[in-house]
């Protein structure tokens, strides 16, 4: 559909990778092996190994699966009857890096290498040949230095999974926590979106973006389990909670103040003292089910930091590199007699240079698949309408984000277009009515095959498909009641921040 599989080629014919049979003892970080996953074998990359009393366990990333499905497995799930792919060898002639042949572990702590390791922008890279990549990176490797300065062109924000899947981290990464993500350039992307780490940080510094630098992404999840409210939750991604938290089985999160504890007793003590019963901001929306609270990152720094730490567990591309001050957090909560329980939130820049109306959005996992995400999105557009602006979410979207947004966009547009008596409409009109950007309107129409060229003219086609979906939704709403944001209940004026209030809170 919308996404053309432009990288299929690259995936299909990777250059010869070293393969061979391995034993449990020879498996090391970077190896790709076949692993039992839900009753089928999947190729998975070993990202970390730890020794337990009952043998080693492995942290694996399933190729072509989202990182949130990465997991610790015990050795029995690795199928050694299949050949494994070895990580790129030290030298081409060195056929196999044996177990005794511990790769150099020089300054393994330096994540900066994670980026530099992969590629330098030599022309032969553009061919996408993995062997070349392997060789090309060698020199910088051997130097073993902080070559951050040499790498600017290497880290492309946009990347081909196909290739990065083939280029594996160097085996010397013994400190698993320090492994970065491998990134390479492919032909198409090489031109665009090149951004050095410095540039990236600079961009974060000045623009207030909330997305993450690729090299920031941490491969091994650090928390094991999470207790929050009535639920035990499995974290999805790394989040910079105190490092000692990775040692405990359960991290306790206070449902209201979002404080975190690695000790149950301490958590209980805290609960006996904590008086917060709702997000610490002003309620700006209330209907029968939910409330929205507006929380200022500068005024509620601790709470917003806690929120970001929490949401980082579920948002891969969120960055916590910089502080929360330039953001407002719109928090959705359900109410009962114990308080207003945070269900989800989105953050929004106080002043977005790029016209984003939303930076990060998250429905907490325990409340997912209940329609709350759609409400959050709807609310973000309601705010944009109140501001009289068109808005779009900040990119990149996560996979879940993309699906939610596409669904919201489609439903919103179809709802407008299907109104009786609607004979024609411009994209601009649609944008103004929905507060979506014209680009988003256009792309949604294209993606759902609604914008067509017919007999020399453009037409918007309400396909049978979308009409059917629309009717289904109406039926569902009839039964379950519709979940909509009622603009009349929104008590909100766009907050105004002067330069000095943004800076000094004066």
């Amino acid at each position: 559909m919308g996404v053309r599989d432009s990288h299929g080629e690259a995936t299909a014919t990777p250059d010869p990778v070293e393969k061979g049979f391995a034993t449990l003892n020879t498996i090391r970080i970077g190896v790709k092996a076949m692993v039992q996953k839900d009753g089928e074998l999947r190729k998975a990359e070993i990202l970390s190994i730890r020794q337990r009393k009952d043998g080693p366990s492995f942290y694996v990333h399933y190729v072509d699966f989202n990182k949130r499905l990465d997991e610790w497995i015990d050795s029995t799930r690795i199928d050694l009857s299949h050949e494994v792919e070895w990580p790129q060898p030290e030298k081409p002639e060195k056929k196999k890096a044996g177990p005794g042949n511990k790769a150099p572990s020089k300054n393994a702590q330096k994540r900066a290498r994670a980026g530099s390791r992969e590629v330098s922008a030599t022309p032969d890279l553009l061919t996408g040949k993995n062997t070349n990549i392997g060789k090309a990176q060698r020199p910088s490797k051997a130097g073993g230095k902080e070559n951050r300065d040499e790498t600017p062109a290497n880290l492309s924000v946009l990347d081909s999974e196909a290739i990065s899947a083939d280029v594996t981290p160097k085996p010397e990464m013994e400190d698993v926590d320090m492994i970065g993500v491998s990134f390479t350039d492919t032909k198409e992307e090489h031109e665009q979106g090149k951004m050095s780490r410095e540039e990236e940080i600079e961009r974060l510094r000045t623009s207030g973006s909330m997305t993450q630098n690729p090299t920031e992404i941490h491969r091994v999840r650090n928390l094991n389990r999470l207790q929050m409210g009535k639920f035990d939750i499995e974290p999805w991604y790394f989040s910079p909670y105190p490092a000692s938290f990775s040692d405990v089985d359960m991290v306790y999160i206070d449902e209201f103040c979002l404080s975190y504890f690695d000790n149950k007793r301490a958590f209980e003590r805290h609960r006996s003292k904590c008086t917060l019963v709702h997000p610490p901001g002003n309620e700006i929306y209330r209907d029968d089910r939910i409330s929205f609270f507006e929380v200022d990152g500068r005024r509620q720094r601790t709470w917003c930091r806690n929120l970001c730490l929490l949401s980082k567990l579920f948002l891969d591309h969120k960055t916590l590199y910089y502080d929360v001050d330039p953001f407002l957090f719109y928090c959705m909560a359900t109410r009962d007699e114990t308080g207003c329980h945070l269900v989800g939130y989105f953050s929004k820049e106080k002043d977005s240079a790029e016209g984003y109306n939303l930076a990060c959005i998250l429905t907490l996992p325990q409340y997912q698949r209940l329609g709350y995400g759609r409400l959050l999105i709807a609310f973000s557009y309601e705010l944009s309408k109140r501001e009289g602006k068109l808005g779009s979410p900040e990119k990149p979207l996560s996979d879940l984000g993309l699906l939610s947004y596409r669904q919201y966009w489609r439903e919103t547009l179809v709802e407008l277009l299907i109104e009786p008596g609607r004979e024609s409409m411009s994209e601009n009109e649609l944008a103004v009515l929905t507060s979506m950007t014209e680009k988003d309107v256009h792309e949604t129409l294209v993606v759902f095959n609604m914008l067509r060229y017919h007999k020399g003219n453009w037409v918007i086609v309400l396909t049978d498909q979308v009409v059917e979906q629309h009717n289904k939704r109406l039926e569902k709403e009839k039964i379950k009641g519709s979940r909509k944001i009622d603009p009349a209940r929104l008590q909100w004026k766009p907050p105004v921040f002067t330069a000095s209030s943004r800076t000094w809170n004066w």
Partner: protein
Amino acid sequence: MGRTRPKKLTSKASIPVVREHDIDAIEEEVQNALQQIETGVEKAEESEFHLQAAINASAQGKVNEAHIPTPETVLSSLRYDELYPPIFSQPATYIRFSSTVEDCCGCPYNMTEEDDVFLKIMNEKRDAADRCTEDQFEEVMHFFEETAQTKQPFAAVDNPPVLSFTEIQDAMDAAVEESVKRFAKDVYEHWKSRRTETGNRSLMPSLKFETGQETDDTDPYVCFRRREVRQIRKTRGRDAQSADKLRRLRKELEDARQLVALVRQRELARKEMLAIERQVFLQRSEVKEMKRKLNLKDDDEDLINQKPKKKPTEAPAVQRPVAPQLRMPPKAGTQAAEDLQLLEDVQAEKENEILRDINQNIAKHIKWNEGYVDFTRAPLSPSPERTFQAAFRPAITAQLPTPPSSDSSENMMDTTLDNPSTLSLRDKLAPQTMVMSDDTSRMPSFRRRIGRGGRLFIDRRNLVSRCRVELDPWKADRFKYDQEDSDEELDFERDQFDIHIMQHRAIMMAKARDQAAAAAQAQAQAQRRLQADQTANNPGQTMGSNPGPGAIAPTPET
């Protein structure tokens, strides 16, 4: 169906909305050739299996199958209702709230099991009344943690030894709660051992912030860095302005702090006073009791404050409240016996007070009118002699002697710096004005004052008028120029800036000034003596005497 390029579509262009059955589906391929739409998803993830599956499913309208698996969440075994009591009641209006997490969480330190064990042991050693509660324990621990944080802010970097107890004691100021002080010593060892275990890190797990080290940039645990704000244009004026603002803010805060500290001090004093008062009373009642036992008969005097020093007691208290004192309940009903003899005293004091009041007002008035002369017939401000006099300064005329003629300049080379010779020279040349009589008050004096509108006045007096001799003004006028002429007769041509002349002049000036100063002092002394005599002799008159206009004010004669 020629492959013509589709017309460009502008956003403003109105597009007809049709149903699928209204058009024929021949031109599908053209559709496919349409622009590629970016998903907005990180490219590396775009091809992920589940996402692709979901996208394809939703493209085919099977929305329910468009599902991306996520790790599951399960109901917790924790007793939710114990942890989260049902204390929330929804207000009718939208909630407005600005307290922070810190405001809402009480003591930031939270006990662990380890602390429980310790606290139990510690409390066993104490008697029931003196046990340490969990809250108190946490306060103590928090105080330790906080003190360590302030005293060793870089503990994470430079690994100092655990703070000693004396250092902690030093940090205990008045703001520290009593309970903390009480238990600090007992808890300290426990805290220390826990700190040692963790390598002197904070006991409360904390996030990693910037430390300013090289490793910061790449450490994934370092988060929430400070974002540098867009630079505002820097000008010197703005710098000064903000520095000023900060200074003022600081001062105001300091003032407020001072104020609070003083209030606190006052209240403490008050409390102490009450305690003492109470003690005194109790002891007195004991005395009373004793007396009763001993069958000594007397009234209730013993119960009340009766220090003889405390003279201004009840009788006048009706008229004037005891203003400056700490507000204490006025002691009621002092005895009649003392009243009788006090009456005169009271009257005397009243009188004194009135007098004092008058004097005060007079002083105030003088101050107001300082530098002005009251011409009214009966001026309110009584003879401002002193101030007046002081305002006038004797004119010390250091008239420069005429230096020797310029032709003798060479000769002077050796003599100018020779003091005696210059002196004698001066003596010779000194004009009459330099002669200072003992009666310095007769010296010509002047004062400078600024009048309304900034006008500058020079008032003179005691001018040694040349026309002392009673002359007919007409005649005097007649001779006016004659005199001048004779004065000007000797006209030496001289270089004003000749080094010798300048030196000479400087010396002369210094000498004259010294002399004049001495004289002025003498005069002041004499006057003081004089005045003292005067006031001693007839105190009543001082107020009435009016010196008249300053310019011609005569020195008081005795």
